[in-house]
């Protein structure tokens, strides 16, 4: 029988390493939770599609290219439809409405695929979309369909190219000749216009010089006329100053003369001489017995 050792605790070194392991586990869990937005409130949306190709759990959900959530679950339903559950972070919930659409998109030609949700502007100010609601999924055009369309459009494109080439072969040389002729004519016209312009400019310069001289002459004459006018006005003013007292005196004399004449006429009018002239027999009548 072996003697049993007394129960003991692990050494401090082992405890330190155990605590370190617990710390590391907490760090890992915290980092994963933070990256997966476990700590932030979120809302679950879903959509249905007939094809799960390209869809993956964990792929990003973006609005306007900005990551706002991720794909949580992809389920194949009994009716062969694929149910995709999205997790949308709560702050971006108000951008999604009932008219929002989900579609599978890709960053560039070779980048990661993601679910793009079109924002619903009408949802702003409305009650936010509810947890577990379904939005519409619009599938993007299949690459095979695109290739088929490209293949079908190849023959018309080739025809158009060949007709364009034949047209270019027949019409292009003529058009180039005509273009050359037009350019030569344009060059001649430009030369003629240049010489005409030179002549016109020299005549214009001469005309301008004559006009300038005429203007200077007119200006000189106008200055002389203005000086004469000023002298005449000054003379008129002095004449008016000198004649004003004489005129006033004359006017006064005329007034006096008119008054005197009036008195004379009145006196004469009242005299007997004028009555005699008007009624020559009346003064004899009074004297007859």
């Amino acid at each position: 029988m072996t003697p049993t050792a007394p129960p003991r605790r692990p050494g401090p070194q082992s405890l330190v390493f155990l605590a370190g392991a617990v710390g590391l586990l907490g760090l890992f869990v915290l980092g994963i939770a933070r990256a997966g937005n476990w700590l932030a409130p979120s809302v679950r949306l879903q959509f249905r599609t007939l094809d799960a190709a390209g869809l993956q759990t964990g792929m990003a959900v973006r609005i306007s290219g900005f990551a706002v959530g991720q794909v949580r679950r992809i389920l194949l339903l009994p009716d062969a439809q694929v149910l995709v559950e999205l997790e949308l972070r709560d702050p971006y919930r108000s951008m999604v409405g009932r008219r929002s659409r989900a579609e599978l998109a890709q960053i560039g030609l070779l980048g990661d695929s993601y679910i793009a949700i079109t924002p619903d502007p009408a949802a702003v100010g409305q009650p936010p979309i509810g947890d577990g609601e379904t939005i519409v999924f619009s599938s993007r055009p299949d690459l095979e369909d695109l290739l088929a369309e490209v293949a079908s459009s190849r023959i018309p494109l080739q025809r158009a190219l060949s007709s364009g080439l034949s047209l270019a072969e027949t019409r292009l040389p003529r058009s180039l000749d005509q273009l050359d002729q037009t350019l030569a004519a344009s060059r001649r016209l430009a030369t003629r216009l240049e010489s005409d312009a030179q002549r016109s400019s020299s005549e214009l310069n001469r005309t301008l010089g004559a006009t300038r001289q005429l203007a200077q002459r007119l200006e000189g004459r106008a200055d002389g006329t203005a000086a004469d006018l000023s002298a005449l006005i000054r003379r008129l003013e002095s004449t008016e100053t000198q004649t004003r007292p004489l005129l006033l005196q004359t006017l006064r004399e005329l007034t006096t003369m008119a008054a005197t004449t009036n008195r004379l006429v009145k006196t004469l009018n009242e005299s007997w001489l004028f009555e005699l002239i008007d009624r020559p027999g009346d003064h004899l009548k009074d004297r007859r017995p």
Partner: protein
Amino acid sequence: MGAILTPAPMAAVSDEPIPRLIRRFERLDGRLVATVTGTGVVVCLGFIELLRSPLQQLSRVTVELLAVRALLFLGPLLVSLLLLLRDGPQLLGERRSPGTWGPELLASGLLSVVLLLYFMAAVIITASLTLNQGDVVAEVAFLIGQLEPARFAAALARAAVYGAITAAICLQQARRASAGPMAMASRMSRSFLLGLGLLVCLDLLWTISVDPLRMGGR
């Protein structure tokens, strides 16, 4: 590796489960943790060098993620084998009936999980420092965030299972009634080979059987 292969002292031991657990956890010392973290650093550096030079993977983020995710897959196998090398001699020195293996299996599983955490920390820090472009803390947080929860939990579970399996192999080998230094070395060698083969087969089964979509693969 000489330190790892040091046989455990044949001291008088208790048969109680708790003291047996404590005795196993006392083996978690600086040398074991240093060995595991050193292995993580070396394997990560080698993997990054492999991705950058011969495979011409030029994207820094791609190289880091590939290294971290690949080593998250390989980590349980590596740390369980290191634990087998470290604790195998001690387990091979104890003859117990299968009904009393519980504490040893539990302790080996837990130790394997603990060692996997140190291994992954070493891998992530090495990847961040090797291809760092300035902000090491943000780089470490980014790489930790890229660990998928399902895969991380599966890696921890696999480490626990693999640790328990290696302990079971050692305890089963210890029941063979042969003594002497040569017999001990032979049992150790056989345990290592058995453990390596079994764990590689289990990894292969895991790779084949687990649905990547259900694992939340991105």
